[in-house]
């Protein structure tokens, strides 16, 4: 059992949660993740550690309420406890002084890009942060990214804030104006794939952080397997970061859809049950 210290909504359906996990906080490095089980009947879900506080003994996760498990987790409040949290899992980001690092975060991916950007800046790199979302209200962690990077550029699909367009437009601008040593891209697969297309021809090393379905997170089931450079890798132990130009994104997308049918049923059921509970609360049953 691990106590939730705080839970706040930072964008529609997006929660930032601090959880008491001193052992994990003490060991955690940028890029690593945890697996959380909200309660006894819940799934084990992987969530990147957005931040940690060793003195407080806490880790911070940022997640979107998109499926049954994140819906359940998102309803929990400070003072509640999650049944299980295990970590830090995965390999930490290889942080080195390379020169100029562009960190691209799309949607919820910004929560993952943020700690990496901070670590790269701390290592002496010039960090340009690019964050994008579908609209202004879905943009997250802008202030935090501003603090972590030397410069930030923002885009929204609908033009409600910053550049009207995609993160790749802004990336192209940066590449055109200065030498970039490495690009980090975290976000929905189409975004990561698009970034890799932009950086392929100029030959800029691009690192992506993948988010397949996982069960154990310690390399024993192979559920998170992806093809990188023609070889099968387990994201939980070999990743979560990989050379973006080597990743078979098409296969990843298909594997991510494995439970879409079941998930849709579960989410529908969750909402119906939630409505019933709210109705009962209103009628005082």
């Amino acid at each position: 059992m691990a106590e939730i210290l705080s839970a706040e909504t930072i964008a529609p359906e997006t929660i930032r949660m601090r959880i008491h996990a001193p052992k994990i906080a003490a060991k955690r490095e940028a890029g690593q993740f945890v697996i959380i089980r909200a309660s006894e009947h819940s799934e084990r879900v992987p969530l990147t550690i957005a931040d940690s506080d060793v003195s407080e003994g806490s880790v911070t996760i940022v997640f979107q309420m998109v499926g049954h498990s994140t819906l359940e987790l998102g309803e929990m409040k400070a003072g509640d406890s999650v049944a299980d949290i295990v970590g830090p899992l995965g390999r930490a980001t290889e942080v080195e002084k390379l020169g100029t690092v562009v960190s691209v975060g799309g949607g919820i991916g910004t929560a993952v890009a943020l700690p990496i950007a901070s670590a790269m800046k701390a290592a002496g790199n010039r960090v340009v942060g690019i964050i994008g979302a579908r609209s202004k209200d879905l943009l997250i962690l802008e202030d935090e990214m501003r603090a972590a990077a030397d410069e930030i550029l923002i885009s929204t699909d609908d033009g409600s804030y910053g550049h009207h367009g995609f993160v790749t437009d802004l990336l192209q601008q940066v590449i055109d104006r200065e030498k970039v040593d490495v690009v980090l891209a975290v976000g929905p697969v189409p975004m990561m794939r698009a970034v890799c297309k932009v950086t392929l021809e100029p030959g800029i090393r691009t690192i992506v952080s993948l988010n397949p379905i996982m069960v154990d997170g310690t390399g024993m089931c192979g559920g998170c397997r992806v093809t990188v450079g023609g070889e099968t890798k387990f994201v939980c132990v070999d990743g979560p970061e990989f050379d973006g130009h080597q990743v078979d994104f098409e296969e990843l997308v298909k594997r991510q859809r494995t439970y879409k049918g079941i998930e849709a049923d579960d989410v529908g059921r969750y909402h119906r049950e939630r409505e019933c509970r709210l109705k009962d609360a209103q009628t005082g049953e």
Partner: protein
Amino acid sequence: MPEQPAEERRHNFDEVPYGYTEELARAEASRCLKCKKPQCVQGCPVAVDIPGFIELIVEGKHADAARAIKRTNSLPAICGRVCPQEEQCEALCVLGKKGEPVAVGRLERFAADWEREHDAVEIPELAPSTGKKVAVVGAGPAGLTVAGDLIKLGHAVTIFEALHKPGGVLAYGIPEFRLPKAIVGAEVDYLKSLGVELEFDTVIGKTISMDELLEEHDSVFIGSGAGLPWFLGIPGENLSGVYSANEYLTRSNLMKAYRDDYDTPIHRGKRVGVVGGGNVAMDSARTALRLGADEVMIVYRRGRVEMPARNEEIHHAEEEGVQFNLLTNPVEVLGDEDGWVRGMKCIRMELGEPDDSGRRRPVPIEGSEFELPLDTAIIAIGNSPNPLIPSSAPGLATGRRGNIVAEEATGATSLKGVFAGGDIVTGAATVIAAMGAGRVAAKHMDRYLADGVWPPEPDPAAPAEGDGTDGA
């Protein structure tokens, strides 16, 4: 042995054999000839006093029988259910030469279940506290055995488990209908009542480093198991609907995906192919049936005789309607446009000369390719030692297959104070072998904790293969 009828049990996850009634148990136990030189004991990897406990059942002293077993086998309720007795004790029973051997496994199960169900589990007296602290990595059969032995000898024991529940393969690998999880829970509760501490969600090598573990404990036992699934390496293996048996079984057994009140999803295929011929393949196939498959097929490249699974599992699978495509090997997994498995291209095999496992090598028959339509494929061809610990402890000698190297006679590794046993050392093997290794390691850890001598000398009295007691 009374069992659930096949037609009924293929739709539920309840245990298949009901277990002996007291009458049946005493009747079966009375068949034992009480041989002067009991061969059965020679066949047991931990040399349980088989004639001894059987005699106690004849006398109606069932709790005593359980205790007699527990002197050498700490988890009899589990071993009685999962040991391949037909290759061990029962294979050597004299009665088996002309008829049926004494059903040693079923009697072991009976005694252990009786003791538990009648609340007769005795809490032994613990030796005075030694002031020493032991860390056990992994709450699987090897780790649970080491913990049980060392706590009784007066040491403080903490088990560190990566998953959120204890048992290792007992929890995630073996299905509910073969090994009810309540039994695993009861065994762990027993250890807790003796004072063993368990820390879940702790990955040694990630949450805590090996160095830290060594700093804070006087000795460490590594029983982290063979949790690295093998894939065939054929095209199409990453299609949706293709599972390693570990993933399929973990979803069903550990995460209880077979129950509607648990959230973890599992694909309930209608035409399921399981590649492999061992117990894990049988477990996967029988689980698929229970999850509602219309057809489940085993695809195995050798023949029936070469299948490593327990006879009882193969027999139960056949009765439940699992089909056996023997002498068949998959060469490609075929998918549809959405990236879902739609079948497997297979080739027929014939048996040639024996390979280094001693079994006849399967050889493809040219031109015999055919397509097997499927909507789910489960790859159950084996596991290697999980690499997390071997790769995170410099100085820990490892073998080619990723296993930790440990002395067979003592369990000692190349790191001072660190012992290892079970699948992490041998590669995937049996529960009883893991327990036997745990026994050996515990004995030598106890001595190391007392005298600090490294490397430890093999204890001649420690249980070894086949040297048993003199019988009744």
